[in-house]
C-alpha cells in the first residue's frame, strides 16, 4: 500500500471517506486493477503519477465542488439538488458514466458540461455570461469544481452511455466520423495517434481507442494534469488535441464536441472509470 502523505491523511478526514460506498471505488484502486489485469505501456508509463494518486489535488477540487453543488446560489438562490443529470433530479451517483445522453427537457444529447450550464442557468438563474458559468478552465472555476465532484461519484463504475434514443445513436455515429476525419495541413485525425496500442508520439505513450482498458483512463476527466498544475476537463483535452492537429479550435458545449464525447465514451463501454484521474 502506498504511503499516505499528511495531505491525504488530512483529506481522508474532511473528505468523509464513507462516501466511497456502494459500487464506487477509489480511483487509485481502479487503476491498479486495470494494471494488474492488462499489459499496457500507456497505463504504466508514469510510476510516479500512479504512486501519487491518493494525493491527487483533484480530490480537493471534488470536495469544493460538493459544497458548491449543495449551496443555494445565483439570482434564484437555489442549490443544484433538483438538477437532473440523467438519473432523476438530484441523483449524482453513477450519473457521469451515463453521459452524454438524451434529455427530454431540452430535446438534445448533452454532456456533463452542457448539462451543468443548463442547470445553472435554468435552476439557479445565472446568465450564460456570468463568471460562474462562463469560466470553464482551471481548478478554481466553479465549472471544474462541480464537474470533478459529479464525476468522482462515478469512480469505478463501468462507462455505460445510453444508446436507446435515435439521437444518442446519431450523435455517437457522427462522433465516430469526427474521430477518423483527416483534415488540415498535417492530414491528422484523432485516429492517426489513438488507434494503435503502445505507440509513442515523441516520449508520450498514446492510449488506443481500441483497448477499453487504456481508453477508460484516456477519457477519465476531470483529471489533475501535473504538467499544468490544474484540474482539466474533457473539453480542455479535445481543444488540446485539435490544436496539435493544426485544426480549428473546438467549442465546448457544441454538438460537435458532444458527438465526439458520445463516441469516445461508447468506445470505453464496460471499462471502469478512474475519477478523478491524474495525468501527465
Amino acid at each position: 500500500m502506498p504511503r499516505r502523505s499528511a495531505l491525504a491523511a488530512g483529506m481522508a478526514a474532511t473528505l468523509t471517506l464513507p462516501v466511497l460506498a456502494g459500487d464506487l471505488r477509489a480511483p487509485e484502486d481502479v487503476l491498479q486493477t486495470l494494471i494488474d489485469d492488462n499489459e499496457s505501456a500507456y497505463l504504466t508509463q508514469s510510476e510516479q503519477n500512479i504512486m501519487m494518486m491518493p494525493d491527487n489535488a483533484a480530490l480537493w477540487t471534488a470536495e469544493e465542488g460538493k459544497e458548491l453543488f449543495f449551496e443555494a446560489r445565483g439570482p434564484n438562490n437555489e442549490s443544484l439538488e433538483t438538477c437532473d443529470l440523467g438519473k432523476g433530479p438530484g441523483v449524482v451517483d453513477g450519473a457521469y458514466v451515463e453521459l452524454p445522453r438524451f434529455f427530454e427537457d431540452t430535446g438534445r444529447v448533452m454532456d456533463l458540461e452542457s448539462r451543468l450550464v443548463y442547470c445553472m442557468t435554468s435552476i439557479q438563474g445565472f446568465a450564460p455570461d456570468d463568471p460562474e458559468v462562463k469560466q470553464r478552465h482551471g481548478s478554481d472555476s466553479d465549472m471544474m469544481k462541480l464537474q470533478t465532484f459529479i464525476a468522482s461519484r462515478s469512480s469505478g463504475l463501468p462507462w455505460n452511455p445510453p444508446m436507446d434514443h435515435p439521437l444518442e445513436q446519431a450523435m455517437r455515429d457522427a462522433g465516430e466520423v469526427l474521430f477518423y476525419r483527416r483534415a488540415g495541413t498535417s492530414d491528422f485525425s484523432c485516429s492517426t495517434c489513438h488507434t494503435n496500442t503502445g505507440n509513442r508520439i515523441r516520449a508520450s505513450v498514446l492510449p488506443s481507442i481500441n483497448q477499453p482498458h487504456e481508453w477508460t483512463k484516456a477519457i477519465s476527466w476531470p483529471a489533475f494534469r501535473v504538467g499544468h498544475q490544474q484540474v482539466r476537463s474533457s473539453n480542455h483535452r479535445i481543444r488540446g488535441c485539435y490544436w496539435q492537429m493544426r485544426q480549428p479550435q473546438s467549442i465546448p458545449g457544441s454538438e460537435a464536441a458532444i458527438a465526439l464525447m458520445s463516441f469516445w465514451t461508447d468506445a470505453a463501454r464496460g471499462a471502469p472509470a478512474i475519477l478523478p484521474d491524474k495525468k501527465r
Partner: protein
Amino acid sequence: MTNRHLALTATAALLFMLATATTAAPPAPEAAYTAMSPEELADYLIFEAGGFDLDAQTQDGGTARERMTQDRTQKVCSAIARSGKDLDRATAAKISALADDSIEYPDGGVELGDWKRGEEIARSGYGYRIGHRVDDHDSRTPGGNCYACHQLDPNEIAYGTVGPSLTGYGRLRGASDAMLKHTYQILYNPNLFFPCTTMPRFGHHGTLTQAQIADVMAYLLDPESPVNQEPPKTADAEQAAAD
C-alpha cells in the same frame, strides 16, 4: 444536389436560424439529425452548428474553415480508416495517382541541403497550430516534427514510434540519384508509395519548402549526419550515461 440533400440543407438551415434567433432552448434537432447520414451530420456539426471557431485566420493566409475542409485524399482515407477495412487495390492506385500528380520537382533537380539545418527541422514541432495559442511564423520557422513519429539519431531517446525507425537511413540505402528522388517524393507526398499513410504531405501542403525538404533529406542521407552514425555500443552508452 439530390432532393434529399436539398431538404436536409433546408431543415438544417431553418433549425440553425431558429437556434440563433431565440435565447430559449433551441428546437429539438431529432428529425433533422436522424435523417442525415453520419458523414452528413458530422459535416453539419462542423460547418453549420458552431462546433469550431471557423472564422479564425491561419498562418497560410486562409481561414480555419478551409483547414477543416477535406480534399479528396483526406476524404477517401478517412472513410477507409473508419471502416476498419484494408485499402483495396483500385482505391490505393487512385490515391497514389493523385499523389503523383501533386508532386513538383525542384528546377535544378533533387539535391541535398545542409543536414544541420535539417536536424532542426526534424526536431521542431512548431508551426501551423491555431486556436487558443497561434504559432507565429514570423518569430519562428515551422518544423517537420519528424521525431514525433520516427527514430532518427540513434542517440536521441525521445522519439515516436508511429512511423518506422529511420536510423541509418542513408547508411543502409546509399545516396544515389534514384534514392534522392525517392526520398524527395516521400517528403513531398508519401501517398505515392504508401497510399493513405498517416505521414503528412509536407511538400503538397507547403508546410516544408523545397529548401527545407533538401535540408531534411541531407539529415536522412548525408554520411556525416548523426542519423547515419553507427549506434553507440551498449557499454559506451552506459558509460556515457554514468558520466
